[in-house]
C-alpha cells in the first residue's frame, strides 16, 4: 500500500511538473541575449585578438621586424574592416565613444601614426616603444 502511494506520488509529481508550462501557458524565452556578441562583433573581437597576438609575438621576440610589419598592417586592415562593419551593423546607433576612438586610432596608425625617430616606422598613437625596432618613443607618451 505504502509502495503504491509512493509510486503514484512520484508519477503525479513528474506529470504535473512537465505539463504545467503547457496548461498554465508559461513560456520560456527563445530570444537571443542582448549581451551576446553579434556576428560582426565576434569578427571584430577575433581580429583584435589576432592583432594582440602579433604584438605579443613580436615583443616576445618570436617575429622579426619585417614579418611583424607585414602581418601587422594586414591585420590592422582586417581589424579596421571588422570595426567598420560592426559600426555599420549597429545602424548608426548612439555610437560607442571607445569604439569610435579605437577606429580613429587604428585609421590614424595606418595613415600617419607616430614616426619612429630611429627607423621611421609609423606607430599607433600612444605607443611607448616603436613596434618595429623597439626604440623608445617617450615623447609620444608625454603628449
Amino acid at each position: 500500500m505504502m509502495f503504491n502511494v509512493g509510486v503514484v506520488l512520484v508519477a503525479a509529481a513528474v506529470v504535473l511538473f512537465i505539463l504545467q508550462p503547457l496548461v498554465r501557458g508559461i513560456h520560456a524565452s527563445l530570444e537571443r541575449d542582448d549581451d551576446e556578441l553579434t556576428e560582426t562583433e565576434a569578427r571584430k573581437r577575433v581580429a583584435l585578438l589576432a592583432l594582440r597576438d602579433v604584438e605579443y609575438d613580436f615583443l616576445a621576440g618570436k617575429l622579426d621586424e619585417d614579418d611583424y610589419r607585414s602581418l601587422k598592417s594586414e591585420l590592422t586592415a582586417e581589424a579596421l574592416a571588422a570595426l567598420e562593419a560592426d559600426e555599420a551593423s549597429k545602424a548608426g546607433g548612439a555610437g560607442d565613444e571607445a569604439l569610435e576612438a579605437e577606429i580613429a586610432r587604428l585609421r590614424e596608425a595606418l595613415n600617419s601614426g607616430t614616426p619612429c625617430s630611429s627607423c621611421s616606422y609609423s606607430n599607433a598613437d600612444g605607443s611607448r616603444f616603436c613596434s618595429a625596432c623597439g626604440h623608445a618613443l617617450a615623447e609620444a607618451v608625454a603628449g
Partner: protein
Amino acid sequence: MTILGEFALWISLPVAVWGMVLGYAGGRTLRGDLVLSAERSIYAVFGLLLIASLGVGAAFLGDRFEYWYVANYSNANLELFYKVTGLWAGQRGSLLFWAVLLAFFAVITVFTNRKKNREFMPYVAGVLQTILLFFIVVLLFADVNPFERLDFTPADGRGLNPQLQNYWMTIHPPTLYLGFTAFTIPFAFAVAALLNGRLDARWIQLTRRWILTSWLFLSVGIVFGMRWAYEELGWGGYWFWDPVENASLLPWLTATAFLHSIQIQENRGMLKVWNMSLVLVTFLLTIFATFLTRSGLIESVHSFAQELKIAYIFLSFMGTVLAASVVLILYRLPQLRSENQIESFVSRESAFLFNNLLLLGAAFSVMWGTMFPLISEGFTGQEISVGPPFFEKVNFPIGLMLLTLVGVGPVIAWRRATKRNLQKNFTIPVTVGAVTGIGLFAQGIRHELALVTWSISAFVLTVIATEFWKGTRARARIEGEGYVLAFFHLISRNRRRWGGYIVHVGFVMLCIAFAGAAYNTDSRFNVQPGDVVEVESPFGHTYELTYEGLSMSIGRGERNLLWQAIATVSVRRDGVPKGVLTTEKRQYTNRDTQPMTEVGIQSIVQEDLYLILSAMNDTGGALRNDPGAQGIDLQVLIKPLVNWIWIGCLFITLGTVIALWPSIDRTRRPRERVAGATEPAAAGAD
C-alpha cells in the same frame, strides 16, 4: 526502494519521449511553453534515473540476490566499498550509470542556460532527450535491465571478479564515463546549431568548457586504466592495445583533434564542416566505445550472437545518428563555407591541420586493428589476433610526428611563416634536441626509437620553455613587474594558451616514459628463504634483494579469500636498506579462477622496482606450512621512467584546469575587451 527504482526507470521512458518530441517541436514552432516543458522533462528524467540508480545501490547494500545483476556482481562477504560501487561493476549497472551521468550533465546544461543562449536550447533539449531515450530503451528492452529478477533467490551471489577489486578499477570506469557523457553536450549544441542555422563559432564557444572537461576526464580515465593494468594484472605492462583500451582511446584521439581544429575555426573561420564532422565522429565513438565494451562483442563474436538485441539497438541508433547528422551537414553546407583560405603550407593553420590528419590516421588504424579480427572472425569463423606489433608499427611513427608538431606548432606563425621566422625560433631548440641525442648516444643509448623520442622531447621542451621565458620576459619588461609576478600574470591573461602548453609538457612526459619501456629489464630467480639476488637497473642502481620467506594465511573467509601466500623481500638499493616489499598469490573462494597475483612496487623518480611472485615451487606443501616448501619463482622487473606517465598525467590535469578556469567573461565587458586587445600599446601609456 529497489522496486521504486525499477518503476522510476519505466516512467522515465515516456518522459524522455515527451521531452524529445517537445524539444524538436518547440524549436520548430518557437513556442516557449513547449520548450519549457521539454527542459523540465530533463530535470524529471534525471530525478527518475537517480531513483533507479539508488534502487540498484539499495539492492547491492541489501544483498538482494534475487536480482540477476546483484547475484552476479556481489556476494554477502564483499567489502562495503565494492558494494557501493557495484552500480558500475558490470554491464547492466554501467549502462544505467551512463544514463544517469548524462542526465546529470543535461541538467547542468539546461540550468546554466536557462537565461542565455535560448535560441539553442529547444534543440539541445531535444537532442539530449533523444540520447537519454536511447539508453533508457537499451536498459528496458535489450535484456540488460539491472532490475531483472531470477526465478529463485540464491543463498549468495557469485561475487565480484577479484581483478576488479582494486581502487583504480573503481575510479577508472566512472572517470571515463564522465568523459564520454560530457562530450554529448558539445554534440547536442552542434546539432542544435545545424538545426537552427546559427553556424558561426558560437556553438563552439558555448561548449568549449564541456569539450575540455570531457577531454580531461577521458585522458585521466585512460591513465587510471593504465595504472590499474600496471598494478593489478601482474606483468608490469600498462597498455596492451586490447579492444577495451582501444575503445577508450578512439574518442580521445578524435576529441584531441577536435580540440585543436576548433582553434582554427575560431581564429580564421575555416574548417566548419570538418569541426561538425569531428564532433559527430567523436560522439559516435563514445557510443561505440560503450557498445564495444558493454555489449559482449569483445569476448567473441560467438558469445555476442546471443546478445543480438543490444547490438541491433546500438547499431541502429548509431546508424540513425550518423545518417541524420550527415543529412543535416549537407543541408547546411552552403552556410558552412570557409571564410578564409590557408595561405601557406608553412603556417600554424597547416600545423593544426596536419595534427588533425595524424590524430585521425591514428584513430583509423586503431579502429581497423580493433575491428578487423572481429569482422574477420564473423566471416570466416577463424580467430585472428592483431597484436601490439601492428598497432606499434603504425602508431609509433604517428606519435613521433605528433610529438614533433607539439614543438613546431606554438612558434610557427599564423597565416604564413617565413624562413626567418623558422630560423629565429628553431635554431636553439633543434640544437638542444641534437645535443641531447648525441649525449644519450655517447652514454650508450642505442635503442633507435627511444633515442629519437628523447631527442624530439628535448626539442619540444626547449620550445615550450623558451615560450614561457620569452613571454615572461616581455611581460616583465612591459609592465615593469618582477619575473615571478610576470610569469603568473602571463598565464592568467591567456589561460588557454599557457594551459595548453602545460598540457603539452605532460604529453611530452608521457612520450618520454613510453620510450623508457625500451629499457625494461626482466629477470627470474628461483629462490629459497635467505637467498640474495642482485639486479642492475639501466640507471645504474644495484638492487640487492633478500628473499625472507613465504607466509600463508588460509581460509579466513574474509573478503572472499580462500588462501593468501605472501612473499617478503627486503630491498637494498646501492647498499642502502630500502625497506621491505611483498608480493602475493591469492586464491578467492567465489570464482573458479587461477590464483591471482599481487605485485610489489617500489618507486623512485627514475624507475620502479616491480616484484612478482610468479610461482611457488610447491603450492600444496606451502599450504600445509611445510618448512621445506618455501621456495618460489621471483620475477624482478625494472621499469625505467614509468612514473613519468603518472606525473605527466598530473601536468595534463593541471594544464587543462588552468585552461578551464573561469575567468571574468570578457565578452560581456566590451570596453575592457578593447583595452585588452591593444594591451601592449596601452600599457606603455600608463
